[in-house]
């Protein structure tokens, strides 16, 4: 297995899929000649040319719609939206066209597009460049939402998403593109449904996804030193959430903490807690807890920004409180 960065893994998936199928194209702002803001499409313009590696104007809703329209004819576009904050502008086409067209055409038409976009709070980017919008996408029927927490997932999910006949939204993270990890040398396809036990434990389940999986793992390692054995579940699929995986782990540990970088309201945490209620309420030894961001537009000031977003320490505090330790 080769060690590569998250962006390199995404780039490799693009490259392999574009070599395999001439109808796989990629498009987005600055992805061609400039090589991509996060380098995820570096070198592809020279290799595949401007018809297949398309530098788009800054018109998020319409270039996303263009990709969706092309997908009606069997093209497999990988659409990069530079920041999830800009993906708000494209939600009309993603929600009203891509997600609904199969249903409202009675199964005649599908929109097999992949939309990749990074969210998250990076470093003092301010309120309009720091959104975490996964909660908005995961509530829409007809759209798959996955979120890779490692280079291996980033590679394998993009490979599967390109080939899947459904529209897939891949929620990436601005702070994770330089993260290193092992990626199989052979072609690898990651599932687009399910969850993964990243660490097995018996005292409490920590649910994370994307960057918060890493906070959970750091917290679990620290807590292990105090004799608290955490299970960490990576909810790499946000839509549909892995009901069976959530139930299985909580039924084993009897306690749950859900960790998200976004605000609590109407979010992943609320949804996971609802599933716990529905699937395994009587297995619980304590009320589940959410660890989430403060509900404010992200402030510019570094100190305020840090105080808004949770981290491994907030996860540890939540676990201790839950266990009364």
């Amino acid at each position: 297995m080769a060690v590569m960065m998250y962006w390199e893994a995404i780039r490799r998936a693009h490259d392999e899929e574009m070599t395999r199928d001439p109808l796989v194209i990629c498009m987005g702002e600055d992805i061609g000649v400039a090589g991509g803001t996060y380098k995820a499409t570096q070198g592809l313009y020279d290799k595949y040319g401007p018809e297949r590696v398309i530098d788009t104007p800054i018109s998020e809703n319409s270039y996303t719609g263009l990709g969706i329209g092309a997908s009606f004819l069997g093209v497999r576009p990988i659409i990069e939206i530079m920041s999830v904050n800009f993906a708000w502008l494209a939600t009309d086409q993603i929600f009203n066209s891509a997600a609904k067209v199969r249903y409202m055409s009675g199964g005649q038409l599908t929109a097999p597009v992949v939309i990749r976009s990074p969210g998250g709070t990076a470093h003092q980017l301010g309120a309009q460049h720091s959104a975490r919008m996964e909660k908005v996408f995961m509530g829409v029927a007809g759209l798959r939402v996955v979120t890779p927490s490692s280079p291996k997932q980033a590679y394998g999910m993009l490979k599967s998403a390109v080939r899947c006949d459904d529209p897939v939204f891949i929620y990436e993270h601005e702070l994770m593109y330089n993260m290193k990890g092992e990626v199989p040398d052979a072609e690898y396809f990651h599932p687009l449904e399910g969850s993964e036990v990243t660490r097995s434990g018996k005292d409490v389940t920590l649910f994370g996804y994307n960057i918060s999986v890493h906070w959970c793992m750091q917290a679990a390692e620290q807590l292990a030193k105090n004799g608290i054995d955490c299970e960490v579940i990576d909810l790499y699929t946000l839509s549909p959430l892995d009901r069976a995986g959530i139930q299985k782990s909580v039924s084993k540990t009897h306690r749950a903490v859900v960790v998200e970088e976004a605000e609590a309201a109407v979010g992943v945490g609320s949804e996971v807690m609802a599933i716990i209620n529905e699937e395994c309420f009587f297995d619980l030894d304590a009320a589940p807890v959410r660890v989430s961001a403060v509900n404010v537009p992200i402030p510019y000031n570094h100190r305020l920004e840090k105080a808004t977003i949770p981290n491994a320490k907030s996860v540890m505090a939540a676990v201790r409180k839950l266990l009364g330790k």
Partner: protein
Amino acid sequence: MNAADKKRLLREMLFARRFEERCYEAYVERKIGGFLHLYPGQEACAFGVLDAARPGHDYVITGYRDHVHAIKCGADPKEVMAELFGKETGSSKGRGGSMHIFDTKHHFMGGYALVGGPFPLAVGMAKGIKLKGGDEISICFLGDAANNQGTFHETLNMAALWELPVLFVCENNLYGIGTRIDRSTAVVDQYKRVCGYNIPAAQVDGQDIEKVHAAAKIAVEHVRSGKGPYFLELMTYRYRGHSMSDSNAYRAKEEERMWSKRDPIIMLRDRLIKAGEMSADDYKKMDDDVLDHIENEIIKFAEESPEPKVEELERYVLADNDPWVKGGAH
């Protein structure tokens, strides 16, 4: 256009008119629900343009006033009516309704309900055609009011920039829902708005099918020959309100009377009668045949068809058993 083509188009337009009028009745009878946007008055637009193109081969997309465009592309009118009745035999299996007629085997790629939503989809289809190297073109029919959406400008820009094979047909019926165009739009002549994108454009009388057809031939040829997009503005009028929930109180009766004198069907009929190509009786017989066909075949089919099964409510949300969801077939 020869006499036989004119007679054929007269019949097709008359059929569309009677089809839509029958929808109106069915709506009043509560056989059709939801929103219903009818086409009477605008027939020469869809038939004139599509007859100059290759319906069933070229990819066509439009907004919510979509029944007639679908039928001209080749959709079975029985299935369109069954869709309006919400039946399993409908074009979209009763899941779409009036605003979402689809018939992809005839390359009718749908009716969409968000004003301006189809613009980027149409250009995307054109991109698909170009990538695949086909000789089809993409045709996008929308109303004048859609041009006040951002997607209009964003899409024209990309269509021109990448020289994509797309024909934009603007059916300018002078009203965006209930607001007259000069009260919502700074530039009333829509063809003038595209000059900023270096896209050739023309404005034509949308009530005279021969003029529409002639203009559309030039437009279609331009697009099909690889010269990039074209914009055709057709000046037209809808006789009914925007949808069935619109009482049409905002329009002057004098204006409506003036447009009714320029009815696309009556104009073509009178021309054919004057040229001795048909008689008033021939027309009456044509109308009777059309009405009979609609009542005894189309309505009958829609009435007698089964409704979708509630057990299949969740079908068509996502692909059935897509292997890549599990990480591949291997």
